[in-house]
C-alpha cells in the first residue's frame, strides 16, 4: 500500500460569502484496520486560519507541531497573526525543505484575510501551492471529493448553506472510500465566530 494511503484521510475546504468551511473525516487506520474514530486532522492556527493535513498520520502530527511553533514565533516577533497567504507560503517552504525526504502529508490551508474575504489553497507533499476560488480537496478520497464538490458547490453561499454543502460532499465521498470516513467534523468560520459540528455518517 502506498505510504500516503497508510492511514486514510479526506479533507475539503470551501469558500462561501465572507466565510469558509473546512471539513475532514475522523478515521485513524493502519492499512485496513481502524484504530480510532476521533483523530484530529484540522488544526487551528489562529482564529481566522485553519490548516487541514491529510496523509501519513505521524507527519500530520509532526507538521502541525512545527507549524504551530513557527506561527507562535511569528506572533512573538511581529506581534500579530499571520495572514493566510503568508502562512501558505510558509507551509510550502517547509515542505520543500524536505524535497528529497518529504513529509507525506498534503495540507489544505483555509483562512480569512483581514478584510474578511476567504482564502483557500492546497499544496502537494513537496510544497507546490495551488490557490483556488471555490474549493480544495485532499486525501485518499480526493477523486471522489472533486466530483462531489464540483457538482454540489455554488458560489456565495452563506454559513448554513455552506455547512450543508460541504457536509454532504464529504459524506458522499468518504462512503466510496474504504479507508476514510467513520464520521466527520466541519468548522465554518465567519469573521465573528466559528461553528464546529461533528457529522455522523456510515460508521464503516
Amino acid at each position, binding site marked *: 500500500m502506498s505510504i500516503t494511503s497508510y492511514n486514510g484521510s479526506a479533507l475539503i475546504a470551501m469558500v462561501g460569502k465572507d466565510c469558509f468551511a473546512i471539513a475532514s473525516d475522523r478515521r*485513524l487506520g493502519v492499512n485496513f*484496520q481502524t*484504530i*480510532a474514530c476521533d483523530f484530529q486532522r484540522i488544526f487551528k492556527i489562529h482564529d481566522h486560519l485553519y490548516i487541514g493535513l491529510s496523509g*501519513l*498520520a*505521524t507527519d500530520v*502530527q509532526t507538521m502541525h507541531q512545527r507549524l504551530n511553533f513557527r506561527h507562535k514565533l511569528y506572533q512573538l516577533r511581529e506581534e500579530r497573526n499571520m495572514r493566510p497567504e503568508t502562512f501558505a507560503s510558509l507551509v510550502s517552504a517547509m515542505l520543500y525543505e524536505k524535497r528529497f525526504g518529504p513529509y507525506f502529508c498534503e495540507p489544505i490551508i483555509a483562512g480569512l484575510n483581514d478584510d474578511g474575504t476567504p482564502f483557500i489553497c492546497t499544496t502537494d507533499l513537496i510544497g507546490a501551492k495551488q490557490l483556488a476560488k471555490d474549493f480544495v480537496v485532499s486525501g485518499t478520497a480526493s477523486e471522489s471529493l472533486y466530483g462531489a464538490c464540483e457538482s454540489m458547490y455554488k458560489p456565495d453561499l452563506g454559513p448554513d448553506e455552506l455547512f450543508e454543502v460541504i457536509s454532504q460532499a464529504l459524506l458522499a465521498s468518504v462512503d466510496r472510500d474504504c479507508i476514510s470516513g467513520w464520521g466527520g467534523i466541519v468548522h465554518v468560520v465567519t469573521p465573528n465566530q466559528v461553528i464546529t459540528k461533528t457529522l455522523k455518517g456510515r460508521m464503516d
Partner: protein
Amino acid sequence: MECIFGLVGDGFALVVTDTSQVQSIVVQKTNEDKIMILDSHKLLGVTGESGDRVQFSEYIQKNILLYQYRNGIPLSTSAAANFTRGELATALRKNPYEVNMMIAGWDKDQGPSLYYLDYISTLHKVEKGGMGYGAYFLLSLMDRYYEKNMSLEKALELVDMCIEEVRSRLVVSPPNFIIKIVDKDGARELAWRRTVEDKQGPPSAAAPIASPMAEDVSV
C-alpha cells in the same frame, strides 16, 4: 506473534502484553516482562524488535525520571506520551526504532489515560486499543464488550476473554501474558496468565543417563 493491548476503566488503566521472547522459530523464554514501569504512575508496554524494545523503553524511562529529578515534579501522562512520540519521530528518518507501544498513566486531574503509539510515531489517545496480529481479533472483541468506566472485575473478564481469543485463534499464539495496572495507588503488576512455566534453575541433579561408552563393551 507479539500481542499488546490496553483499556481504560473506572479510575484505572490496564496494559496487557504477551511474555514470549522469540528468535526466529525458537522461543527463548516465556516470562519476558514487556511492560516497563516508567515512574510511580505510568506504564509503557512495548512490543517489536527486541533490541529496540529494551533500548528505547529504558531510554524513555531514564529520561522521564531525569525530568522529575531536574524539575522536582513528575511529567503528566500526556507529556510523557508526547515526549516518547517526539523521540520516535526524530529517529524515524534517521535510524528508526521498530517498536509499538501502549502508554498508560494516571494523573490527579485527568484520571486514567491510555495512548496508542505505533512504530512510525503516530500518537493517539484511546480508551481501548491493541497492536500486532492479536489486535485483529481483539479490537472487535473490545468494541463489542467494552463500556466506559468498567469496574476492575469486568475489565479483567474482558481481558481474559481477549487472551482466550488470542490463544485459541492465533496460529502461533503466545502462551503467557502479563497484566499491569495503573491507578491512583500507582503502577504495578496485577496478574499473569500462564499456560507454560519456564523451567527454573540448572538441569536436575539426578544421576545422568549412563552413556553406552561407560559400559564394558568387550566383545
